[in-house]
């Protein structure tokens, strides 16, 4: 049943939130520290484990995949509910940050590819 997949996803999400919240309190910082990231790692581990044991039937998987196909629409809804009017003043920041940060990452690709080749 698809709900099994949704339930697995919900479990990973909640455990991730719990860990993130716990870290937030341990390090005395406001907010949830990496809860989404922890939840993703959990889901990857669980997916690998269940696949190895052949426990993950396609029907269950569908329950999770439905939500992963919803993420762009959800991000669209989120974008539509932000304070864009006020953010317009930061338009130049957005453009310069995006182009510069991305260019630096582009430039490093051949370097990193080389490191590995020498090692091999």
């Amino acid at each position, binding site marked *: 049943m698809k709900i099994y997949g949704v339930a697995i*996803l*919900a479990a990973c999400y909640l455990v*991730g939130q719990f860990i*993130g919240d716990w870290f937030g309190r341990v*390090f005395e*910082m406001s*907010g949830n*520290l*990496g*809860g*989404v*990231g*922890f*939840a*993703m*790692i959990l*889901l*990857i581990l669980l*997916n*690998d484990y269940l696949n190895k044991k052949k426990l993950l039937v396609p029907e269950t*998987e569908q329950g*999770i995949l439905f*939500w992963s196909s*919803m*993420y*762009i629409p*959800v*991000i*669209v*809804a*989120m*974008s*539509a*509910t*932000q*304070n*864009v*009017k006020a*953010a317009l003043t*930061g338009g*130049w*920041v*957005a453009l310069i*940050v*995006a*182009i*510069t*940060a*991305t260019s*630096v*990452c*582009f430039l*490093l*690709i*051949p370097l*990193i*590819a080389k*490191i*590995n080749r020498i*090692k091999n």
Partner: protein
Amino acid sequence: MQNIINILDKNGLIFAFLVVGVIMYLSFLVGKKVTNNKIPAAAIAISFGLFIAYFGKGEKGIAAIPAFSGMALLGGSMLRDFSIVSTAMGASFSEIKKAGLAGVISIVLGIVIAFFVGGVIAYFMGFTDAISLTTIGAGACTFIVGPVTGAAVGASSEVIAISIAIGVIKSVFVTIATPIIANKIQLNNPHTAMIYGGMLSTTSGVSAGLAATDMKLVPYGALTATFSTGMGCLLCPSILYYIVQQFI
């Protein structure tokens, strides 16, 4: 007319499904007809979202209009984080091993470099608080990492909007630049494609960019980009936020 508005008010979330569905359809249409599939529909749709937010009021964007209040629920932090976690299904540790050491380095470095380059520029452009710098740095990773981080550290709606915009511009920039510079960075084999995905993190930009370069390379880049996005959601609101706090 009043009846229709009443029904929309009462069924906000359902109406939001319809609105977003229409936005997605129009974006795919624009992507196909106007840009010949060169710009990822996801980036067009998110730009569309930011555009209609402009017609709303203040902090809540379009959701300030009662009929559109469901957009705040659909795009709220709960459903957003839930759907983002589900994208981890596209990643697997047994697959990532094939990327080797360089792949793992690229996943971490792609996040750390984008974060700090973004943060430093924002600092010199007038943002001085740790929360805004962290959110903008996270936006330089992807349009997902930005808002996830912003919500986790308690950023304002305005700064989150900037971080989404950064991520969208990055996605479009990656898409356009990839086929142009593919030869220069020797992006013609699975190994480099995996490093490329890890370094650039933006799954939509990486997938569209690779599709325009060599269709066979898409799954390799998409895999590490998905990992990199997850890594961003993990590192930005935690360790990297902590480091920023030490400097500010």
